[in-house]
């Protein structure tokens, strides 16, 4: 009960919701209530921990070797006088992984600006090109090197999956970057890219939520951020309290989900075997 304001607003909101519900809840799809409640609960947990972080509550963030290695990789490129290649996946900005990839790009661009290392970002979607350019431009400005930024450091290759892979492979073979970062949504081109990067001896760090590609990246890259680690990258790299609070909130939600899984399995068991209690499967199924 440390955050009185949070509980006050939450209470008020719930009261309003109760009044609305008792009033016949017009325009509301009642069969989706469980999902609605879950969203509110999860969003509430996130907001609570973000606010806690803003009040300077300390949260432990498990070290993620892959993210620690990002700065090392940029440093290595600087020492070798070679560029950093950043591949933000092959999908558009409507995929959260691409968005997360562009966010991490912003942080990487800050590092390359700081170290005065050249950065090459080939993209496969025009909107990603615009977003990635903005992220890089801002990062170079923040680091006080706007002169080092040029539009063509983020350039479009093609929308086609394998043509893009061929284009990026060509860049790797010609420019031999010292560090290659793959952060975004990938499909079958992942191993083609990562193996080529491996063959030129680049330090490779991948981050993706594309489950099918994780084994390929683990095999061919030096470090791989798997799923949520990738989404937590922004918090880790920026060390902003509100983002770190979000990661903590995410962990608490996960603990909640694990508890629900156990309870649901138990309820399902007793319902199946003895016919006692509600059919939890029916309740939890998204309508």
């Amino acid at each position, binding site marked *: 009960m440390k955050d009185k304001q949070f509980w006050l607003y939450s209470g008020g909101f719930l009261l309003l919701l109760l009044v609305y519900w008792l009033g016949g809840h017009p325009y*509301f*799809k009642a069969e*989706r209530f469980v*999902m609605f409640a879950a*969203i509110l609960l*999860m*969003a509430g947990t*996130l*907001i609570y921990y*973000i606010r806690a972080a803003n009040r300077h509550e300390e949260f432990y963030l498990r070290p993620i070797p892959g993210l620690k290695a990002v700065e090392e990789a940029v440093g290595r490129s600087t020492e070798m006088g070679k560029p950093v290649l950043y591949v933000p996946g092959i999908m*558009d900005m*409507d995929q*959260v992984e691409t*968005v997360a990839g562009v966010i991490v790009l*912003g942080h990487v661009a800050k590092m390359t600006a700081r170290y005065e290392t050249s950065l090459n970002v080939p993209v496969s*979607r*025009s*909107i990603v*090109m*615009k977003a990635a350019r*903005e*992220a890089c*431009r*801002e*990062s170079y400005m*923040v680091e006080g090197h706007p002169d080092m930024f040029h539009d*063509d450091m983020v*350039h*479009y*290759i093609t*929308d086609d999956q*394998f*043509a893009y892979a*061929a284009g990026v492979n*060509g860049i790797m073979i*010609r420019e031999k970057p010292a560090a290659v970062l793959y952060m975004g949504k990938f499909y*079958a*081109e992942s*191993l*083609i890219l990562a*193996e080529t990067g491996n063959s030129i001896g680049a330090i490779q760090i991948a981050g993706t*939520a594309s*489950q099918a590609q*994780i084994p*390929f990246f683990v*095999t*061919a890259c030096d470090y791989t951020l*798997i*799923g*949520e680690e990738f*989404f937590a990258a*922004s918090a880790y790299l920026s060390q902003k309290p*509100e*983002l770190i609070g*979000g990661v903590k*909130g*995410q962990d608490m*939600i*996960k603990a909640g*989900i694990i508890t629900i899984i156990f309870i649901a399995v138990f309820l399902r068991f007793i319902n199946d075997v003895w016919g006692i209690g509600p059919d939890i499967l029916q309740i939890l199924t998204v309508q």
Partner: protein
Amino acid sequence: MIWKRQIPILIVTIVGLLTLFGWFIDEPTVESFVNDDATQWYDILASFAIFLGALNLMKMQINKIIKKKPGWIYSIIAILGFIFAITAGFFIKGVEGVEWGAHVTTDGTLFKWMFDFVFTPLSATMFSLLAFFVASAAYRSFRIRNFEASLLLVSGIIIMIGRVPVGGIISSWFVMYILVLALGIGLNIRFKNKMITLAVVGGGILAVTTAGMLSGWPLDQPSIFYLPVLQDWIYFYPNVAGTRAIMIGIGLGIFATSIRYILGIEKSYIGE
């Protein structure tokens, strides 16, 4: 500054909340917006943005040719390919009596020719590279370094062999003999005692042979040692368990990232 900061955040918040909670609202206009319009708006925007990409591509390639950068000769091919694709798509059908639009899938048209004889073999070539890269990656990284790596290696081999027809002709009795030998190697490494190794391997071979002779050596029995069945089991249980755990984590990550956007906490996409 308001156009680059507050307005974009406001748009994200409003559209984000509408899309998130629109799913619970029983009102046709909102439903139509959430289900169809919002995504289609994005596609319309993205379609127009393709011009930006195309222009950037051309600019880069022309620049490369003018400055004679390494590999500039390929830039000429890229530009010619670009012009050819546009010509085949919008200006020359190659066959009379075919509707514009239908010409892309009609045999004999210039566009279909380009698709069949340029695009298809090039795409297939890139995809087929995977076979080579999978081989070299597996060769390099599948090492018995520790228990987990060994487990990965064994599962990988079961899947690789069990998935293809050759796995179906490998008898489960052969797999059992291999297991007995592997057990012998393991015990020998652990205890370094030849007698124990000999006893276990000898006993194992005798037991398998006796069981085989009594049952008539059926190819797929006991099914637990039959590779196609074993690989199906690995796919269906351990794999699904791991995949589900990762799926839940990813789903949570996506949810948390989206909420951070909607609430305006994550502003990196506008450069903050």
